[in-house]
Structures are given as C-alpha cells and as structure tokens.
C-alpha cells in the first residue's frame, strides 16, 4: 500500500510551488512506512529472539539426549533422565479433544447467533460469550474441578458401558484426566471461535444473501450453502487462534489433567502437557541439565505449534483450491 501511494505522488510533475507539499507528502508516507515496518519487524524480532533463547538455553539437554528427547518417556529429575514423549502426547490429545468438541459447538453457535437468532437474544448471548473470554484460566480450572469433574464422575460409567469396547474409554477414572482437560480446554476456546466467526458471518454482504434467496433457497440453505462458505476464511482463522490458545494453555490444564507423565490409551487416564510441566517444575529446577530440559520442552512446544499450524494451513489451502475449481 505505501508503495502504490509513493508511485502515485511520484507520477506528479515536480513543480516549484507544490514542491514543499510534495516533499512533505513523500516524507509523511516514508515515515508511516518506516513506523509500520518497525512495528511489524519488532514482532518478528521478538519471535526470533524467543526461538534463539530457547535454542541456546536448551544446549546441555540437546547435546545429552539428541533426538531421543522427543521419543523417550522417561522423565526422572533425580536420575537426570529427560524425555518429552508423554508431554507431547498429552498436549496433542487434550488439544485434539478440545478442537473436536469446541469447533462444531463454536461454529454452530456462531451461525445461530449471526443468522438465526432474534437480534435481542443474539446481542445478549454474544455479550455473555465475550465475557467468557475474559474469565481468567485459573477460574476456568476451578470450574473444571468443581463442576466438570463431578459431572464426569457421574457420566463416565455410562460412557464406559456404551463405548467401553474402545481402548479410549477403558480403565479406572479418578476425575482428573485427559478427558477433563480436553473438556475444560474446549470451554476456553469457545469464545474465540464464536465471537470471531460471528463477526465474519455478519460481514458477509447482504447481496449474497439476497441472491441466494432470490434463487429460491430456504433460509438454512442460504446460510449453509452461501453465507458459511463465503465466511470460511474467517471461520478457519478463528479456529487457528483457538488451536494456538489450546496448545499453550497452562493453568487450567494443570489443575485438571492429573500431572502424570505417561502415555495411556484411555481418555480416562491422567496425563500431562508441555506447558503444565514447565510451569510446575521450572521454579524449583536445580542443575543445568534439568533446567535446559525444561527449556527444550518450550522449544518443542514452539515447534509443535508451528508444525500443526502449517499442516492445518496446507489442509485448508488444498481443500479451498478444490472448492473454487
């Protein structure tokens, strides 16, 4: 944008009178360009500095364990053995569960609020949902302990009865579990998905809707076949934001996940996540190797977030390509 503005000004013949004005305009554009460039660059710099710090400070652990760090499930601070596998597993499973619950629920709610609900109800509900985004994660964690887990305690026997033939729903249930963490995370990501998706659905131009209705579509056909595909990019963006939030969430997860570094097939079993173990153990981690192993976990989480985001973007690109063709 700044580039085009400059060429537009440059195209003017430089006269004696408007020269000062012209110069001021050019320098104004340049200043704006420089300022906004610095803003953008500082974000990139912070990210690069972050990765560099994580990389540099995880040195002892990287040298000691190499790639074995990613696959080993031994986390023994006393013996100086560190492996990230159970934490990676817990992070992925809880996030997958949260997305599985949160995405359909969130997108469905956004469609209802934007398209179908009476305006009064819609604005009231939207206000409440945006309030949910402002609730601190430690409060959501308490909600998990005092509401979600007691409900799960009552429902898990039925789940086990109906779905117990799958390893996912077997074994003893203590309350704190991967399942509880996934549900709590899904509550935390809902407001992100709902409020952003609702905004983009509302921003779909009215002529799109009118055209669909004019072609004889019902209200639902118009919503599902025209409005939602039009808003798809924004909805997907809200899901990415939710994904990032879910991968990095610390406090609420550690309160309900059970903090047990193990890889268990069952969702009823306790687990652990990368962010939770860093928060739990960093303050009292003594010794260079132990600390660097925790820093390396941070690096792994960063890499994991990057990889998942990239994969999801590729997936979206490939499907949307097919859609338009």
């Amino acid at each position, binding site marked *: 944008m700044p580039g085009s503005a400059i060429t537009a000004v440059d195209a003017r013949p430089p006269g004696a009178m408007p020269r000062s004005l012209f110069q001021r305009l050019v320098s104004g554009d340049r200043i704006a360009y420089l300022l906004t460039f610095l803003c953008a660059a500082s974000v990139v710099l912070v990210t690069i500095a972050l990765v560099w710090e994580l990389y540099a400070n995880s040195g002892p652990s990287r040298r000691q364990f190499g790639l074995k760090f990613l696959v080993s499930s*031994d*986390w*023994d*601070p*006393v*013996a100086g053995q560190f492996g990230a596998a159970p934490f990676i597993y817990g992070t992925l499973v809880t996030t997958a569960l949260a997305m599985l619950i949160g995405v359909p629920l969130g997108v469905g709610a956004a469609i209802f609020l934007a398209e179908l609900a009476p305006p009064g109800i819609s604005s009231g509900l939207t206000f409440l949902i945006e309030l949910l985004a402002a609730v601190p994660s430690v409060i959501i964690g308490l909600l998990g*302990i005092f509401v979600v*887990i*007691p409900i799960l305690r009552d429902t898990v026997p039925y789940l086990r009865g109906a779905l117990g033939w799958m390893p996912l729903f077997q074994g*003893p249930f*203590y*309350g*704190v579990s991967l399942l509880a963490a996934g549900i709590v995370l899904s509550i935390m990501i809902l407001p992100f998905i709902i409020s952003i998706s609702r905004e983009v659905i509302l921003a779909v131009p009215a002529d799109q809707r009118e055209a669909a209705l004019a072609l004889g579509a019902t209200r639902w056909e118009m919503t599902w076949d025209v409005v939602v595909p039009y808003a798809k990019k924004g909805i997907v963006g809200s899901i990415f934001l939710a994904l990032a939030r879910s991968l990095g969430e610390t406090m609420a997860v*550690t*309160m309900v996940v*059970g*903090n*047990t*570094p193990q890889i268990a097939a069952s969702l009823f079993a*306790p687990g*652990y996540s990368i962010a*939770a173990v860093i*928060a*739990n*153990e960093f*303050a*009292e*981690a*003594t*010794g260079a190797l132990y600390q660097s192993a925790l820093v390396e976990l941070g690096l792994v989480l960063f890499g994991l977030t990057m990889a998942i985001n990239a994969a999801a973007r590729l997936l979206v690109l490939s499907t949307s390509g097919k859609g338009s063709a």
Partner: protein
Amino acid sequence: MNRVALAILAVACLTGGVESASAQQVSMNGAGATFPYPIYSKWFDEYHKKFPAIQINYQSLGSGAGIQQVTAGTVDFGASDGPMNDEQIKAFEAARHTRILHFPTVLGADVPAYNLPGITAALNFTPEALAGIFLGKITQWNDPAIASANPGVKLPKADIVVVHRSDGSGTTYCWTDYLSKVSPEWEKRAGRGTSIKWPVGLGGKGNEGVSGQIKQTPNSLGYVELIFAIQNKMTYGKMRNAAGQFVAATLDSVSAAAASVKDMPDDFRVSITNPPGSAAYPIATFTWLLIPEKIGDDAKRKAIKTFLEWMLTDGQKLAPALDYAPLPAPVVAKEIKAIQKIQ
C-alpha cells in the same frame, strides 16, 4: 556542555550527601522458600518495628530460586527448605569467592492426609506401608500392611488413589527423603528430590492442589505440609517413628525430631527425617536461611548478625502462633555460636 557537567556534579554531591547522612539506614533483600514465608514476613516486620533503621525484604520465589539468586548475588541472603547440595555449594564458592552458611530457622513437617468415607480417626501408618503404597505395591486400603497397624478400624476394600505434588517443592523433598531412608527400594527406584519420577499417583499443584484432589477423590491418600493440614482441618495419620511409637504430627513432636538428632553437623546441613527419639515425628525438616560467610558492607553484616540473634531468641517465640514448630534449645545454642562465622 558546561551546564550539564555542573548539573551532574550537583546531583552527585546531593546523593553523596544523602548517603552519608543515612549511613544507619540498612535495607536488605532475601529470596527463597515459600513454606516459611508467613513467619519470615512476621519476623522482618517485628524486627523493623524494633529497629526502624533496618528494613529486610523477602520474596517467596521457591527454594530453588533462593539458591540461584544468592549464588548470583542478586540478593543478600537466600532461603531454602532443603540444604544446598555439594554441587550447589561449589557453584556458590566459585561465583562469590566465599562460603555459604546454613542457619535453621523453624521446622516443618509432612503428614499423610487421606479421604476415607466414614473414617475420621487418625490412622496409623508404618514406614513399610507408606513406602509400599507410594511404590504402588500396596494398592488396597484393607491390605494387611495397613490393617495390622489399625486394629478395630474397618478399612474398605478399595483401591488407594495416591496423590502427590506436581510442582517442585521442599515438601516433596522432605517426603521422598523420608521414604528413601526407610525403604531401600524407594531410594533405588525413585530417590529424593524436589521433583521425582513417581511410581504411581496423580499430581496436584501446590498443597492446595493436593488437598483439593484428596477432598474430591474418595479413598485417596497424599501428603501435605502440616501447617496446611492443620489450617484446613484435614484428616491425617500418625506415623510409626524409628523408636516404634506411633506419633501424631504436632509442634512438640516436630521440635522433638530436631532435638533428637545426634551429632548435629557444624554446617547444619542435615536431614532430620526418621530421627531416633521416641517422641519425635519422623517426617520433619528444618528450613534454612542461606547467608554468605563474608559480607563486605559493614552495616549489612551487623544487621544480619543482630537479626539472627533476635530470630533465635525472641523470634522463636512468635513461631507457634503461626503453627511453625520452634527450634529446640540445643540447636539454638549451636546456631548462636555459628553467627560469629559471619565476617
């Protein structure tokens, strides 16, 4: 340019003047263990009232952070629930070119807290039963190892849900140090540390996380700090000590644990778990102030020495009101002698 130089000179004179005028005013900074924070802030506050010129600030960042900061020299003294190990002492001496002194201040203890529906009595635990439970070898409440120590109590045939701390903590160090002393198998498989690899169990963050999980989970058993258990009215068991007596954790039995330690080392770096005394509660620990042997600043050195003397005499009397077990007299006497080492 001249004017700037003049201004700098004026400011320098001014601050210099202020400094020399308030030479008596001493401000010291410490950081470390969270467990003794309530009593430390009470002490520093009372001491400041007594000697308004001395201001001591304390940040409860955790024992590990206390050791790191005193080693880095960012604070005047550190505080820790566990003594510094040889590696940490070497690092301190390399960084600060002096030695570090350990001064025990008060005592803490860990208790086995549980949630057994219908049982409110204090259960008796033997060291073997406790180690067996935490190793995952004793899995049910009515196991003979538990039942035999509790005649007359009808223990349920239910799985024991073990709960432990998930955050690194001095409470965990004390608990695992005790288990390592009473069970060779525990020492070999898990060992002692502020964070360890637990053979079984769920992790809760902080004393409140563990107690929350115990309260919510029927048939669970975990460990919490004694003060936390008292203040939250939790049900906790008695431990069989080295003399064969079942002892409940109280301020007296915890102080007795420190009193019954034979051959207190000169540097006070000692674990007092599983002590020999018959009245001693066996899962107890000192908490220490970590003070450099050489303090260059005259005023600070004088302030910390007088504070230690006051803490060991008048200060100890403030401890029981906050549920901390005070130091026994022989330890106090030995520490007062050790204050002279600070130069």
